[in-house]
């Protein structure tokens, strides 16, 4: 909480021009429903701030002086290793999207769990299928979907627009498709931990785990079908195809550097960005927006998704295992060459053979890790992530001015500056 609160406060600071940290805040803030100050779950910056030491220090300093408008950015820049740079101020206030959507996101995991529970009479299937819907995730996908839904509704219908139940369903579906793919990834990659707890493949029979993934997908498909929109079904079925094709792309690698980078970007789109892009497109379709707006939503999601994954690949090199809730340099260990490695190749061509043999030889992982840190690979990855983030923010700015539209821009910032 402590991490975000300065930023949240500074939104109000700008409104009210005077406000001190920890003091009672007047309750007329436009966007943000105020809660009594105190710890609330901190999503994107980590579960609890105390666990991330650098973050804690930054928050402390934020609490001393009067909060400034750029607190989020300062905070980010104080995190030397992960700072992805700051974005220009897209609007006057910085809105915490999770706070803004608190009511909409409230109970979303419970709703997913009860949807799954309704669809099976097998207790163990229910246990495995609901395992990752424990509310500990960042819920980034549902958040972005609902945010876009509200922003587009506002864009089309103005101030009095509300979130459609079908749009909230899409938010749930996006998280379900994501989890189904995580569950299958766990079996493929044999990971031990996910989200700070043992992953499904450690706890249960792998055949059953695979079936649980299929089950979640099937229930999600039924939910999609119940929206009774041909377009939405087509858009969301594309996601599933993309996910699998992305996995297949990950099995192979390309010989030349140019091909390799294009391959990596396409893979990243299919594995990560497609889900976000198509689910925000789906909510835009449901709101009845015109084609241009739907395309704008799609492009926003695509850029945000790419930026998200680039940061993810970056964090795999710089973040601590504790903050991530999963081991780091995990991609290298899995034989995957992500953006930092591909960039590092320019300076250190000796990485090429390692990429081709998927870092299988003894010492490869350590050597590659070292070379990436010596090169400008991390910097260049950060730059690329920032480029996509900026693009997403620019697209968001084209929507009608609303708190949700602003939060869309803030989200790109959150994605860029996250540390886990």
């Amino acid at each position, binding site marked *: 909480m402590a991490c975000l609160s300065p930023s949240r406060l500074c939104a109000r600071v700008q409104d009210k021009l005077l406000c001190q940290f920890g003091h009672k805040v007047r309750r007329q803030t436009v966007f943000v429903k105020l809660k009594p100050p105190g710890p609330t779950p901190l999503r994107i910056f980590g579960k609890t701030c105390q666990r991330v030491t650098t973050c804690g220090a930054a928050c402390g300093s934020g609490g001393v002086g009067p909060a400034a408008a750029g607190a989020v950015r300062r905070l980010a820049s104080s995190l030397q290793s992960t700072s992805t740079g700051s974005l220009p101020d897209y609007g006057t206030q910085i809105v915490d999207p999770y706070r803004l959507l608190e009511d909409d996101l409230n109970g979303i995991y419970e709703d997913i769990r009860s949807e799954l529970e309704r669809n099976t009479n097998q207790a*163990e299937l229910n246990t495995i299928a609901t395992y990752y819907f424990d509310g500990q995730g960042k819920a980034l996908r549902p958040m972005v979907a609902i945010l876009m839904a509200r922003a587009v509704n506002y864009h089309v219908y103005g101030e009095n627009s509300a979130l459609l139940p079908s749009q909230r369903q899409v938010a749930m579906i996006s998280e379900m498709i994501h989890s189904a793919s995580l569950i299958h990834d766990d079996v493929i990659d*044999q990971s031990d931990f996910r989200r700070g707890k043992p992953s499904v493949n450690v706890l249960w029979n792998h055949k059953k785990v695979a079936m649980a993934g299929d089950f979640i997908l099937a229930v999600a498909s039924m939910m999609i079908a119940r929206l009774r929109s041909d377009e939405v079904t087509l858009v969301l079925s594309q996601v599933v195809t993309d996910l699998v094709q992305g996995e297949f792309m990950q099995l192979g690698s390309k010989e030349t550097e140019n091909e390799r980078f294009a391959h990596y970007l396409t893979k990243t789109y299919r594995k990560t960005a497609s889900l976000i892009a198509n689910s925000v497109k789906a909510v835009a379709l449901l709101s009845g927006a015109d084609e241009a707006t739907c395309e704008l939503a799609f492009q926003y999601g695509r850029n945000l998704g790419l930026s998200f994954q680039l940061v993810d690949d970056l964090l795999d090199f710089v973040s601590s295992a504790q903050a991530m809730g999963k081991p780091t340099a995990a991609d290298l260990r899995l034989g995957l060459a992500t953006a930092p490695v591909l960039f590092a190749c320019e300076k250190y061509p000796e990485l090429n053979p390692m990429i081709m043999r998927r870092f299988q030889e003894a010492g490869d992982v350590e050597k590659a890790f070292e070379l990436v840190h010596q090169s400008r690979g991390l910097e260049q990855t950060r730059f690329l992530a920032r480029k996509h983030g900026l693009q997403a923010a620019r697209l968001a700015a084209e929507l009608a001015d609303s708190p949700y539209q602003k939060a869309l821009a803030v989200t790109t910032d959150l994605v860029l500056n996250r540390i886990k």
Partner: protein
Amino acid sequence: MSLSCLRNVARCNMVKVSPSSVFLSKLRGPCAEREVYTSSTQHAVVTQQNTKPDWNRAVSEAEKIVGYPTSFLSLRWVLSDEIANVALHLRKLVGSNHPLLKTAKNLIYNGKNNMQAWGLIVLLVSKAAGHSPEIPDMEQDKAAGVLHSQRALAEVTEMIRTSHLVHKGLVNMNAPKIGPGDPDDMMFGNKIALLGGDYLLANSCSELANLRNQELVELMSSAVRDLAEAEFLGERDEQNNPLPSRPLPEEQREAASEWECVLQPLPMNGVRGCARREWVARHVLAAGALLGKSCSAALKLAGHASALQTQGYLFGCHLALAWQAFLDLEAFSGPEPRSFSLVGAPLAFTLQARPQLYELIEQGRRSVHDVDYHALYQAVLEGDGIEQTKQLQREHISTACEVLDSFPNCDARTALANIIVAMHP
């Protein structure tokens, strides 16, 4: 497509002419009254009198009726990047013990339980029921008498079923002992199996979406859900092979409830410990639901009333159950096999009659291979499990045939009847 030609050649070689004349008189139900093997239709001259109708022949004749073979191993598939990828990786697995190899072999080898027949049945039902005159010509495959959408649906059915089989063929690497084979090979095989199955599932999702019929998407998705549920029913060994539940005396069983809405999950009350109900529930989830829902969906695409759609569901579901009973019986019709399904109907009925035999089953808790199959085999032969299974199969056949009778007489209906007769005990 060369592959399917190959299959047909293989099939001709396999045709065996049974000396016994198991004949129509044995068929109970409305189908018996009808001349099944009339040669009145142009294609469906299936067998001569006095020979037992052969399964393979019934299937291959039926394939001609609905046009080209329904195999999804069509050019499109062979040319797909992902499938080529899987094939490439499969080669690395040759020599390892991964069950995916066996699954792949079964997909191409045209045995009696081949899954190609599933799509075929969907197409035959489509043709037998015909379609509403309002459907524009563009959407029809005039020569074959089915709609393009129905053909796509048949493909979806096969994809879903294959995907499920492929996922079922994973190795549980979480077991204390994972059996023979290099763990790295097993892990790699799992990866390919999981991705391959996912690929089929994802394709079936987009094929379904292209049909632009949301009720249909919901129905077929619920069939995928049922298949997943099937893998959780009852006791399992460490590799998730099913074991029968301990038989319960009649007074301890719960009341069973009907599956009133197939979009809801199958109710489980009163299922465990009752041989017949458990067998039905297990195979409805693992097979009947998919075939039934596919047949029902085919009729929906043709614009038929929901009453007929329900009939379609019943036909598919009962046919799948009859089919399963037929497969269960096969283990007991030839020489003694080394092993057989522990959840087959003959054994289930035998266990119910002699609950003390359950001790033998318990030896398989770790692995079904530890079970004394010989003792169980003898027990089944001594009791009336086989007779009860035949009775069970007859009941399902007769329900399926009742539905068949409501379709107009045509070559597709004859072909369906022939397939049913071919598996008659």
